[in-house]
């Protein structure tokens, strides 16, 4: 469904803040992957790289068989062999493997790499790359701060995207929206503006706004972190029922109970890499990574 290949992400003017340092993971259809980790470990950045709200500095993201980032030459040894740098290294009597390794290590490709190399890269890009706006239609995203459109009513929040993208007529979209609002018991709020809703209500509406696009996968970026403790439950209930309906989900959260109960796989991130990956039972019973042991001892 989503495959992340060796993704790097730097922030800052010269890339001095390294948030993701080579993350690779696969999200299969029907999985419910929970990403845990201390703050600053890159959980949210990884999630935002999946739908390109954050442009990775290096690496590739594939969604349902299509490439959504620019192709990353470092993942393709056969491209690197087309590069001028590689040829130069062979001429200096390096072995093939050594030359490739050195290119990857030094990331020399920011220099001119020759026409054959460029053509190959462009060909792959043309063939496989999918317009990000098309890819995003299939990926719902729920934000920590809800981000409901403040200038639109609840119903308009749900119908805006399907109607503007001409996926549905206004009537169809409204029908679907009302059905979704009924599911979260907020049908009576259809004509209210977001400012009048409580935090929990806003987040429930934000979830169904994403569902109105009928996505194949839902990304949750700390959906309960900005809520009053009282309201966490109602949002988690909606997410649980969504999980029960078989939706593919990737959830960044601090809710350990939810991770244990709903997740099919838990990834623990630390300092920009996935430090540990396991089923929930395994994850909580037999943590191996020392940083994870420390983390669990603090939060449980």
């Amino acid at each position, binding site marked *: 469904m989503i495959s992340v290949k060796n993704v790097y992400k730097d922030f800052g003017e010269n890339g001095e803040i390294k948030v993701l340092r080579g993350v690779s993971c696969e999200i299969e259809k029907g999985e419910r992957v929970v990403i845990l980790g201390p703050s600053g470990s890159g959980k949210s950045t990884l999630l935002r790289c999946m*739908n390109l*709200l954050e442009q990775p500095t290096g690496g590739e993201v594939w969604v349902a068989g299509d490439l959504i980032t620019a192709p990353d030459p470092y993942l393709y040894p056969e491209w690197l062999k087309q590069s001028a740098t590689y040829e130069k290294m062979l001429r200096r009597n390096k072995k093939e493997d050594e030359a490739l390794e050195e290119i990857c290590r030094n990331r020399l490709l920011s220099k001119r790499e020759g026409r054959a190399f460029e053509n190959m890269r462009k060909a792959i890009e043309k063939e496989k790359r999918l317009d990000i*706006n*098309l*890819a*995003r*239609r299939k*990926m*719902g*995203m729920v*934000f920590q*701060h809800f*981000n*409901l*459109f*403040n*200038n*639109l*009513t609840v119903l308009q929040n749900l119908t*805006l*995207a399907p109607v*503007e*993208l001409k996926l549905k007529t206004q009537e169809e979209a409204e029908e679907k929206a009302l059905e979704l609002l009924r599911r979260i018991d907020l049908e009576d709020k259809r004509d209210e*503006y*977001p*400012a*009048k809703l409580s935090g929990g209500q806003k987040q429930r509406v*934000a979830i169904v*706004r*994403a569902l109105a*696009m009928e996505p194949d996968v839902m990304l949750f970026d700390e959906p309960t972190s900005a809520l009053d403790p009282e309201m966490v439950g109602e949002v988690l209930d909606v997410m649980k029922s969504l999980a029960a309906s078989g939706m593919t989900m990737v959830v960044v959260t601090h809710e350990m109970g939810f991770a244990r109960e709903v997740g099919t796989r838990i990834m623990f991130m630390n300092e920009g890499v996935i430090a540990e990956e396991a089923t929930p039972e395994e994850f909580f019973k037999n943590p191996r990574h020392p940083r994870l042991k420390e983390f669990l001892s603090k939060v449980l």
Partner: protein
Amino acid sequence: MNFFEGVYTLFTNPNYMQSLFKGLQITLVISVAAAVMGLLLGTVVALITICPDSPAMKIPKWISKIYITVIRGTPMALQLFIMFYVIFTIRDFPEIVTATIAFGINSGAYVAENIRAGILSVDVGQTEAGRALGLTSGITMRKVVIPQAIKNVIPTIGNELIALIKETSIVSMIGMYDLTMAAKIIGSGNNMASYLIPMSVVALFYLAIVYMLTFVIKKIERRLRAGDKR
């Protein structure tokens, strides 16, 4: 002649009234036309300045930056003089058009900064939510960000329009017959021989225009804030 007698004379003498209304007309025409031009120009410039950096936008962005810097950094009167005595020196070119262009260009620079600030004041989460749904940046701008930005900029744009109306009084410096010029002529020695009365009356005229404008802006603001009430 005491003050109230003077006011009475001013309002009953058809010649004086005619002068006043002629001046009022020119002030209003310049203000309205320059406001329209300033809003259009300002919006375009603001949109250019907030566009993400790309090779194609480099030159427009550069021009916008220089435009805003130069216009905001030089006196309005000087800009007006340059427009009159340097750029539009063609004989019989309608001076009202020249004045409108001068004020429109001036107002555009301020409006551009106001609108830019208004767009930036909309939470980036709104844009992200739109883009995450698969909307293009254009649709997100049009349907989500701009409507919220407009609400934020109405008060500052209102301020700018008020300043513009009053600023038009400097066209009297190049001899145009606006409200201020009318007051000056009515008060001169050949006519009333007292500046106090016509100047006070014209001040009231300006005050009335600005007051009405303020009223309209308040109305618009209230309507746009409908979605904010808790």
